[in-house]
């Protein structure tokens, strides 16, 4: 792994457009095509009605994926959730896979922006939980296809590295760059899973600020008296 924080070191408070330079250029160039870090511009540009139809379908996709997972969510279920016909869905997306890909891209955009904008590690952790909760349908669908879909796994892995790099920025004081990135990966993994098992109903629902505060305190101070 080469100097992951190079971009950050050059710009103390880079604007969101610099996000792609926060990671090493060699890994970033490949990743930008996958995750599309720039804000969404791919909405069909033909009037507000079409746009809101698309938004409604995306929202219905999140709800349906959260309820049924990737395999359990049929195009008919997503359309019905949006109160539309399957024809309406196919008017905007090639199918379930395309809709999922768009949802995951939106998740990637939002979590990257949120991590970038937060002013502290603890603030970042709150943001990760809140954005992941909002997109829990996309995360459940992602977990369901991760092992059998190398293309999606590559996108997910790239996003994980981006998030780890952004978390590492606030860990650079006590740690070396390599260790900061390693901790960043651990934190993003833990919170990904926390949100997933929470949405499956396997653990109890908690306030994001409590979870972030506990995790942050464990990172900095551990569980025992110094």
């Amino acid at each position, binding site marked *: 792994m080469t100097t992951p924080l190079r971009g950050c070191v050059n710009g103390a408070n880079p604007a969101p457009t610099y996000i792609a330079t926060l990671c090493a250029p060699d890994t970033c160039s490949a990743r930008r095509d996958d995750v599309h870090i720039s804000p969404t511009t791919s909405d069909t540009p033909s009037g507000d009605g079409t746009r809101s139809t698309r938004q409604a379908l995306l929202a219905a996709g999140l709800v349906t994926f959260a309820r049924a997972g990737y395999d359990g969510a049929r195009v008919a279920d997503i359309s019905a959730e949006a109160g539309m016909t399957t024809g309406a869905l196919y008017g905007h997306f090639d199918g379930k896979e395309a809709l999922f890909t768009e949802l995951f891209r939106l998740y990637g955009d939002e979590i990257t922006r949120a991590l970038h904008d937060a002013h502290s590690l603890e603030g970042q952790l709150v943001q990760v939980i809140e954005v992941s909760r909002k997109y829990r349908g996309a995360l*459940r669908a992602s977990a369901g296809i991760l092992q059998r879909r190398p293309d999606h796994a590559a996108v997910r892995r790239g996003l994980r590295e981006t998030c780890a790099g952004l978390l590492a920025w606030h860990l650079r004081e006590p740690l*070396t760059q*390599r260790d900061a990135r390693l901790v960043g990966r651990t934190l993003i993994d833990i919170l990904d899973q926390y949100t997933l098992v929470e949405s499956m109903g396997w653990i109890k629902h*908690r306030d994001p600020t*409590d979870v972030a505060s506990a995790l942050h305190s464990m*990172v*900095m101070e551990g569980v*025992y008296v110094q």
Partner: protein
Amino acid sequence: MTEAESDSDYSWTPGDGRAPSSRRGHRTRERILEAAVAVFEERGLVEVTVQEIGQRAGVSSGTVYKYFRDKADIFRFLLMELRRTIAEETTIALDDDGKLIVWPAMSRFLELYRANVALYRVWWESLDPPTEFSDMWVEVHEGYRKGFAAALRRGKRTGVTRPDLDVELAAELAVLLFERPIYSRIVLRWDPDGEDDQVTDVTAALLGTGLGSVTR
């Protein structure tokens, strides 16, 4: 995973009530299990058939059914064995002050995880949609969580645990440290190679006195 881990509610009995009675029968069952691991690793639990497992093991489907009810029964048996091994070999001991001794247990856990990567791969794959194997996963998670919580609560009584620590939440997060990051690392192979010691250091720090004052 910790000394306070609760006993399992799950038990496994052979398919038609017969455990292998002869040495030869035992070898046949072992061969079936090894074949099953290989086939599961290549194709996952959902698509594999008992016939394929038998073929790989060089026995008939009938022979497989002599020992196991179906493919899920084989996977159940393998998971039970894995759980037993993990419980026996990665117990996190407490030191004289009552603090968790994370390093040796975590180190061994990573080794066992690698040695059983095929089973972990299939187990993670079986979590959604929920099945008996996700129930088992939740049960293991709960066992570990209770173990960590018990150890941390005990530490509060003796004054070693941070007084302001939310024990329940810390225990939940402690379990997650042993789940998803290891899955990303060993099953998905997303991390750079050869940093097991650093990963173990980080886990030990989060379950020790943190990274805030570390200078390396």
